[in-house]
């Protein structure tokens, strides 16, 4: 946190996107901690009365929200209210209170029993299980005199300040009312950051000092500089709004394929995970797909879908990209995406475990089926399908995967460079593969030995760091020497200025959330390949992520 000459307080974080917004703060309540099972000091009758009052109040609260929302939301919230009033739940709560539990713990434990039952039923009902947790937390917040959890309601647009957003919060977020998102925890790969990128919302994440902001504070959120300014002066607001208008004008003018100022072509591809996101990528002008994540087809499945089922889904996605490149990543199971039929349970450290290609090689029939389905789908459509393996860490693994893919009818096969060993030995890997694609999120995680999902080490999850950039440079050089394309797929490519640096380091294509394409295209058009190389050299020789970025910002030619 710093103070400007004007006395204004500036909070620093990691900006997502480039826009600037001004508005009043609305804080998300702190999450309610799970109650612990301590014996009640009240009479059971008193505890039961407390429990029933809070459940009734929760039901009323949910119905009130539902009435305001109307439509389908009203029905869903009404069903939740009925769960709070449920006689079977009440009986379970009473039973636990009779055995000496507090009202808080009795509600928590009774709800958890029902939730677990729904989870074991799986499918649609399993997905509703999270709703019960929400009802339970609301009732417990009521008992503790705390505000109801979740995104607060507001009739007017606001800047949402939260610790981080849970997936459930993002689902109920009214995007028309949210001017910007600011989080104290969470890095560039958090849920909040991903949501902001997908929807094009201004966001600053990992701004720890934002904890001191209170409801109603007026802030200027500047995503390009990663700052949140409290009580900004009018001239600062005017300047920021003017900059946003200029950016929008540049963005509106840019269209077509990605290229540098000197005409050097840099294809701009999309990261997708579903048929819906394929459609969106096309609408936003993607020149193809640089990362098609296939896990979504498998998540929640008890066994791998059949070759024919897979073929149909792949063909549907490929159909959106006739004549264009689609790079498919085979199943990347493990760590944060466990799959029952692939992932070993009980690994103490799954991010360092048998995940990605390691898991597939151990269950080769799953890999063979997927490659076969991909080859079939590719032959049915006009897309130029390429396939790559995740979590490749040795030259032998790269060789194994590409040989197998070719054998099963995939013409172009490559590897993802996410493990430092693969980047360091890129000169040996390159001759064995048809292309390399750098996954910057995992590469950063493994370079710093910092879990990308862990808020406490989020400050290390920064792809601007020269430690990451030097590895990318190594891969870029190896690709150039062996005439093997080097793509970037990861959040780093979505940062327009960093995208220029990546091209300077040897990236031949960039893949990102499709909402970022327009901004990246506009920025690339302002630099020649020589400029990009100069900026890249500055970034690589810097000492830290911050100084790398600053050096590039200062050296960037003025618009």
């Amino acid at each position, binding site marked *: 946190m710093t103070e400007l000459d004007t006395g204004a307080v500036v909070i620093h974080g990691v900006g997502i996107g480039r826009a600037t917004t001004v508005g009043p703060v609305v804080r998300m309540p702190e999450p309610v901690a799970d109650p612990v099972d301590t014996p009640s000091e009240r009479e059971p009758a008193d505890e039961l009365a407390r429990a029933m009052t809070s459940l009734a109040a929760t039901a009323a609260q949910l119905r009130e929200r539902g009435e305001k929302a109307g439509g389908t939301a009203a*029905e*869903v919230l009404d*069903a939740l209210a009925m769960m709070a009033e*449920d006689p*079977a739940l009440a009986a379970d709560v009473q039973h636990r209170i009779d055995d000496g539990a507090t009202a808080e713990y009795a509600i928590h434990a009774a709800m958890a029993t*029902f939730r677990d039952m729904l989870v074991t039923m799986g499918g649609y*009902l399993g997905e509703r299980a999270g709703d019960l947790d929400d009802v339970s937390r609301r009732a417990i917040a009521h008992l503790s005199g705390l505000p109801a959890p979740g995104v607060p309601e507001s009739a007017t647009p606001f800047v949402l300040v939260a610790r981080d957003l849970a997936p459930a919060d993002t689902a109920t977020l009214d995007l028309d009312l949210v001017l910007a998102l600011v989080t104290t925890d969470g890095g560039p790969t958090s849920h909040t950051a991903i949501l902001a990128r997908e929807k094009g919302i201004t966001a600053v994440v990992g701004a720890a000092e934002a904890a001191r902001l209170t409801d109603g504070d007026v802030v200027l959120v500047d995503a390009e500089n990663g700052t949140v300014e409290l009580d900004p002066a009018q001239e600062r607001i005017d300047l920021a709004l003017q900059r946003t208008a200029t950016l929008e004008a540049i963005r509106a003018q840019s269209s077509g394929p990605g290229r540098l100022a000197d005409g050097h072509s840099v294809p701009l591809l999309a990261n997708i995970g579903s048929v819906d996101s394929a459609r969106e990528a096309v609408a936003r002008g993607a020149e193809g797909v640089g990362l098609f994540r296939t896990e979504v087809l498998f998540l929640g499945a008890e066994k791998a879908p059949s070759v024919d089922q897979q073929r149909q889904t792949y063909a549907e996605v490929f159909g959106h990209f006739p004549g264009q490149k689609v790079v498919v990543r085979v199943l990347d199971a493990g760590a944060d995406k466990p799959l029952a039929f692939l992932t070993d349970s009980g690994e103490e450290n799954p991010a360092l475990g048998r995940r990605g290609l390691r898991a597939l090689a151990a269950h080769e029939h799953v890999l063979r089926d997927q490659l076969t389905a991909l080859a079939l789908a590719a032959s049915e459509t006009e897309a130029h399908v390429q396939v790559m393996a995740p979590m490749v860490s040795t030259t032998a693994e790269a060789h194994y995967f590409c040989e197998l893919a070719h054998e099963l009818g995939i013409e172009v096969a490559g590897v993802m460079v996410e493990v430092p060993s693969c980047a360091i030995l890129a000169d040996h890997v390159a001759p064995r593969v048809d292309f390399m694609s750098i996954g910057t999120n995992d590469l950063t995680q493994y370079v710093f030995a910092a879990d990308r999902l862990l808020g406490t080490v989020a400050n290390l999850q920064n792809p601007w760091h020269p430690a990451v950039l030097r590895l990318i440079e190594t891969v870029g050089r190896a690709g150039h020497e062996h005439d093997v394309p080097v793509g970037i797929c990861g959040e780093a490519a979505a940062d327009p200025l960093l995208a220029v640096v990546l091209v300077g380091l040897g990236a031949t294509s960039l893949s990102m959330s499709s909402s970022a394409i327009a901004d990246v295209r506009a920025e690339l058009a302002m630099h020649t390949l020589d400029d990009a190389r100069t900026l890249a050299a500055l970034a690589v020789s810097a000492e830290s992520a911050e100084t790398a970025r600053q050096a590039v910002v200062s050296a960037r030619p003025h618009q």
Partner: protein
Amino acid sequence: MAERTLTVASTHGLHARPAALFVKAVTDSGCTVELQKGERKVNAASILGVVSLGIEHGDEVVVRVDGDDADAVLDSLAAFLEKDHDA
């Protein structure tokens, strides 16, 4: 007590929305209603109970109604279950 065996018509069975509507109809009737699928019986005024039966389209269930106008209430509940609420 009135009792009937019938087949559930909703395309997606008795999941959140149809289940909520059914439970509401039960609560409004003022009767004690039991819903049974296979060996399991639940209080039909409990949405968690009804949902936990995992009733799918085409499943056979038994409805038992106890209270005033039990026959009329059973008729209306049966009519509800035999209609497709997801159509």
